[in-house]
């Protein structure tokens, strides 16, 4: 500390010195790009003397000679030290991306061990302020909290002391239960055994009642008042951006995206190498129980196709060997779509032995999984149906009882295999490291019938794509506590060809289908037993400590047997209209486990060292949407605006985008009123920050003034004039104030399933369409996937237009089709970006020879118009608007921009002419350039 200090600056709050400010007051504000090489270059330049320094009065002299050499020595030495330092990076900068930690710059313990010594030295050299939490001076806010804690502790101690004084007669460990167990902490309930001896009444399971979230620990209770945490919340909260505390999503705190950059790594891990896992515990689970016939009747009422339910196709599903995912609809007249629901039957152990009469009479269980945004809708619907069902059906809410996770990517199976050790000891590769059991082994009676599923599961090592397995295959077995085998080790994978052949044989024969094993996950008692028996981490550690070095602890008969249910999901692969796209058919595993058992499994998964290096990644909601987008699948609820949940989602998104837009200063945001929407029209169609379905279905708003109404009528008569529209949009925009609650969904807006949509589109326009009477055709949406044929990337909210009809605007139509004819020739060239068109001729100039000018002219005549040129076709008018893009971006799997959106089916029906199948024009919201695209129903 120097005694003489400079006068304190006005703003004295900053601890470190400020960077030197530019002394010139009128310095140009233009930001110059930082030259990162300059520092290195400076450090490497060696200083030299001039010749004159080596002379003395212009003469050679020994002393001058010696001095110049001495200077050289110091210069070189200094230069060496300098360049060494310039290249030098701090220890915490040298760790790979995934090991970087925010606090590593001031906490040595955050860098890997091998760099820790160096880091310590560097911090000492640099005088880095290092403060440990213990020695930190608490902030004012923190101090208040600490004081409160102190006070509360004192109070609690006093209270406990008082209780102890009262207690002694009851505190006998062998005595009766404490009189008021509600008061005592749960860990103080010692006499559990005696309770068990008395055999308390097991609480009756309340059916048709919404489940309440599990009571969190007191420490975390205040944070879960209006939402609940996923079982892996603590893991994710450290590593991911979660939903804001005030704005929980579907009453859950859900990870949105990892803190680390992960767009491309997620794509790579799920397609090429690695694995991506999601905690999907927020997906709601329901159980309905009753006779098979009444359950199937219930599903039929929910609008599931009859052939799926009772036909041969659904045979395996009804036996509980496969899962089925179907879109369900409301039972009442408008038959509003609800959500896609995954359904699985509980396999019945006594299936074959029983007679047909008994078969019909026995009660069966059906598990339904639905997205939480549509849970209440489905729940209400199910309750209503259960009331009228005969014989009775009971509905049970298993929301906080069954958790789930999803894992995809080539390493996913491997990671799951290492986390899920079957409870029954089996002579598999996991237990003994011997050769895998063959399909023949498993099939034949040599192995125990009871362990077929476990053996099959263990023999799946080496499987890289779950989609190879029988479609929607279901596996259910019991597993051990994964903490006993933590940290996980890389499992043995098949290397030889014979082993791989065995795996293929196993997949082909799929012996799991022959066994009759009751999946215990459906059993409440089994679920609760597994959750209750989970030993504490302390007990697990003790057992691990007792095990021989390098060995896992022996399984004990008292260990929890965690019932799990695994099923595969393969992307449905309809006929892809877009050519040149190889569909990524990577399947994924979904794992259902009791809620409380999910967390240890999750940790085992996350720390599994994959055989291809690295560990499985985790994803948030954004990654889930990305992966379904890349697979060409629509994501519920975002891509289903025809459902109630999708409508609410769209509304929330719209508000978010609007807030984002309003936040920007006027000069820097898109002026939606001035956007050129084609043919001289100005002003975005509907609201610019949303997919304006109201506008699409209802048409442009009709104003009250007679003059404008007349103009409107005139406009609808001849499509060219659109001057009135801009004015109206303005008026509408100004009057619109965003209400807090989502407005009710448009009354008739509905989402058609793909099959119905395809049937509608296939009918020739001349024939009358027979439709179910409830479908209101003018507001029926179909979900589509979109590829752009020329260039461009569709963004969310992009407007989709059909080609203008050949009667109304033949010229524009011809122009758009001209783009198509020149572009479909070569698909690979089409998406080549800037280099797609061979524009390698020199630009126009004065000195160009005649033949070059002619060549250019000829080429420009042959080439299609490009965006921005005069001849580029304008966007069609609003009467040709057919839909909006709900998800759109550059698609890493396809290699060009694609999108998922919805169209009004009535507007595209019968508009097809030969050779222009499903063509459309897409214009991003707020831009004037439209692109030619092609859509297909999904």
């Amino acid at each position, binding site marked *: 500390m120097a005694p003489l200090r400079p006068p304190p600056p006005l703003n004295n709050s900053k601890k470190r010195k400020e960077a030197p400010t530019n002394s010139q007051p009128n310095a140009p504000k233009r930001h110059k790009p930082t030259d990162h090489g300059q520092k290195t270059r400076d450090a490497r330049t*060696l200083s*030299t*003397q*001039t*010749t*004159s*320094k*080596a*002379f003395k009065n*212009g*003469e*050679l*002299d*020994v*002393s001058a*000679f*010696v*001095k*110049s*050499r*001495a*200077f*050289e*020595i110091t*210069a*070189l*030495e200094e*230069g*060496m030290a300098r360049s060494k330092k310039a290249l030098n990076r701090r220890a915490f900068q040298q760790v790979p991306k995934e090991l970087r930690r925010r606090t590593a710059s001031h906490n040595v313990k955050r860098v890997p061990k091998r760099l820790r010594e160096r880091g310590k030295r560097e911090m000492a050299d640099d005088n880095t302020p290092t403060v440990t939490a213990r020695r930190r001076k608490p902030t004012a806010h923190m101090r208040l909290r600490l004081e409160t804690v102190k006070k509360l502790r004192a109070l609690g101690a006093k209270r406990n002391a008082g209780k102890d004084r009262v207690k002694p007669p009851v505190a006998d460990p062998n005595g009766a239960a404490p009189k008021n167990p509600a008061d005592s902490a749960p860990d103080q309930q010692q006499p559990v055994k005696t309770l068990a001896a008395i055999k308390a009444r097991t609480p009756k399971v309340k059916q048709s009642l919404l489940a309440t979230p599990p009571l969190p620990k007191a420490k975390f209770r205040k944070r879960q008042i209006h939402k609940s945490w996923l079982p892996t919340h603590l893991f994710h909260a450290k590593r991911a951006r979660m939903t804001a505390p005030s704005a929980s999503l579907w009453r859950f705190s859900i990870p949105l995206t990892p803190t680390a950059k992960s767009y491309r790594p997620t794509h790579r891990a799920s397609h090429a190498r690695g694995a991506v896992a999601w905690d999907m515990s927020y997906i709601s689970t329901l159980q309905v129980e009753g006779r098979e016939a009444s359950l199937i009747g219930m599903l039929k009422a929910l609008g599931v196709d009859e052939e799926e339910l009772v036909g041969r196709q659904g045979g395996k599903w009804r036996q509980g060997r496969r899962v089925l995912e179907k879109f369900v609809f409301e039972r009442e007249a408008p038959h509003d779509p609800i959500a896609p629901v995954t359904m699985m039957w509980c396999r019945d152990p006594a299936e074959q032995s029983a007679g047909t009469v008994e078969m019909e009479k026995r009660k069966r269980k059906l598990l339904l999984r639905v997205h939480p945004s549509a849970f209440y809708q489905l729940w209400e619907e199910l309750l209503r149906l259960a009331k009228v069902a005969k014989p009775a059906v009971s509905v049970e809410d298993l929301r906080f009882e069954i958790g789930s996770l999803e894992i995809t990517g080539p390493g996913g199976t491997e990671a799951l295999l290492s986390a899920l050790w079957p409870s029954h000891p089996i002579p598999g590769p996991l237990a003994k490291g011997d050769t895998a059991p063959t399909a023949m082994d498993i099939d034949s009676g040599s192995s125990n019938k009871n362990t077929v599923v476990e053996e099959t599961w263990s023999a799946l090592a080496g499987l890289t794509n779950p989609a190879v397995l029988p479609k929607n295959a279901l596996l259910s077995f019991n597993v051990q506590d994964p903490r006993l085998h933590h940290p996980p080790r890389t499992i043995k994978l098949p290397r030889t060809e014979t082993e791989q052949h065995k795996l293929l044989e196993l997949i082909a024969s799929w012996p799991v289908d022959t066994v009759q094993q009751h999946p215990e996950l459906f059993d409440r008692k089994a679920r609760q037993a597994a959750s209750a028996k989970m030993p504490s981490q302390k007990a697990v550690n003790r057992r691990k400590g007792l095990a021989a070095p390098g060995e896992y602890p022996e399984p004990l008969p008292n260990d929890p047997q965690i019932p799990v249910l695994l099923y595969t999901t393969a992307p449905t692969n309809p006929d892809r209209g877009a050519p040149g796209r190889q569909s990524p058919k990577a399947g994924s595993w979904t794992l259902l486990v009791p809620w409380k058992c999910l967390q240890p499994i999750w940790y085992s998964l996350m720390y599994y060292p994959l055989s291809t290096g690295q560990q499985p990644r985790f994803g948030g909601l954004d990654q889930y949407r990305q992966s379904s987008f890349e697979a060409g699948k629509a994501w519920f609820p975002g891509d289903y605006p025809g459902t109630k949940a999708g409508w609410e989602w769209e509304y929330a998104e719209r508000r978010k985008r609007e807030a984002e837009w309003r936040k920007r200063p006027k000069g820097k945001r898109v002026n939606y009123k001035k956007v050129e929407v084609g043919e001289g029209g100005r002003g975005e169609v509907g609201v610019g920050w949303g997919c304006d379905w109201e506008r699409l279905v209802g048409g442009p708003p009709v104003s009250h003034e007679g003059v404008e109404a007349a103009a409107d009528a005139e406009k609808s008569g001849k499509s060219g004039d659109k001057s009135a529209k801009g004015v109206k949009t303005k008026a509408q925009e100004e009057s619109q104030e965003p209400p807090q609650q989502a407005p009710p969904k448009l009354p008739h807006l509905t989402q058609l399933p793909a099959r119905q949509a395809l049937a509608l589109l296939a009918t020739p326009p001349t024939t009358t369409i027979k439709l179910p009477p409830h479908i209101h055709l003018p507001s029926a949406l179909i979900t589509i996937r979109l590829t752009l044929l020329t260039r461009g990337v569709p963004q969310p909210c992009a407007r989709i237009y059909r080609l203008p009809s050949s009667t109304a605007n033949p010229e524009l139509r011809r122009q758009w089709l001209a783009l198509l004819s020149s572009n479909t020739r070569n698909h690979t060239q089409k998406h080549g970006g800037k280099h797609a068109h061979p524009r390698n001729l020199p630009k126009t100039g004065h000195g160009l020879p005649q033949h070059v000018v002619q060549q250019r002219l000829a080429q420009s005549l042959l080439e299609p118009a490009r965006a921005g040129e005069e001849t580029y076709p304008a966007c069609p008018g609003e009467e040709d608007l057919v839909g909006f893009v709900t998800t759109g971006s550059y698609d890493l799997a396809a290699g060009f921009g694609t999108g998922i959106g919805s169209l009004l089916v009535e507007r595209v029906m019968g508009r097809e002419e030969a050779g222009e199948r499903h063509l459309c024009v897409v214009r991003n919201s707020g831009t004037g350039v439209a692109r030619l695209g092609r859509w297909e129903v999904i």
Partner: protein
Amino acid sequence: MVRIKHRYLLVNILYPDAKHSQLAPATKPGDNVPYTVQFRRPSPDQMNGGLLMRLIRDGVVELFGDYGSGKIAGSLQVVKYFSSATSTAIIRVSREHYRLVWSALTFTTRLPRPVDQPCVFQVVRVSGTIRKAEEEAIRRARLSIRRAEAAAKSSSVSIAGTASTTPTAVAAGEDDFDMIHGIEDPDEPGDMDVDDDG
């Protein structure tokens, strides 16, 4: 990725004939300045990195033609270090073609036009890293200091002023007497190590 590899040549410029020097001292050589100092005299101020570069390029063109100049054109860099006060340079060239540069330097007998002075280029060290070349330059500078001082002492010139500035030279001291008038550098490594202790 394949790493691009270079060689660093440490080059000394020697001036064996003092008579032709424009900067020659008025007195006759050997009078009061030891020969070792004259021999390693500073280069004239016009001599700089750019000139050295031109010299090498011309030399390579003369010896190896367009082929040679094309080969070295991409990697040749003199600016790594050139000190005219001590007539030392460090030249960088790609590993495959450093021989072309070396031979061009060896065949040079005169500095080009603006200087126009007879000289000898001596490549004293070829190394893979600039660091080693720099270390060698330091070692050689120490050695020549020692020699100059020893020569000055023997020719009864007072070097009291210089001795204090370079304590390392004093420490090495007496052993170098037999090399005072030696023109050639002892390039055997063993010999060097003995000298280098100080």
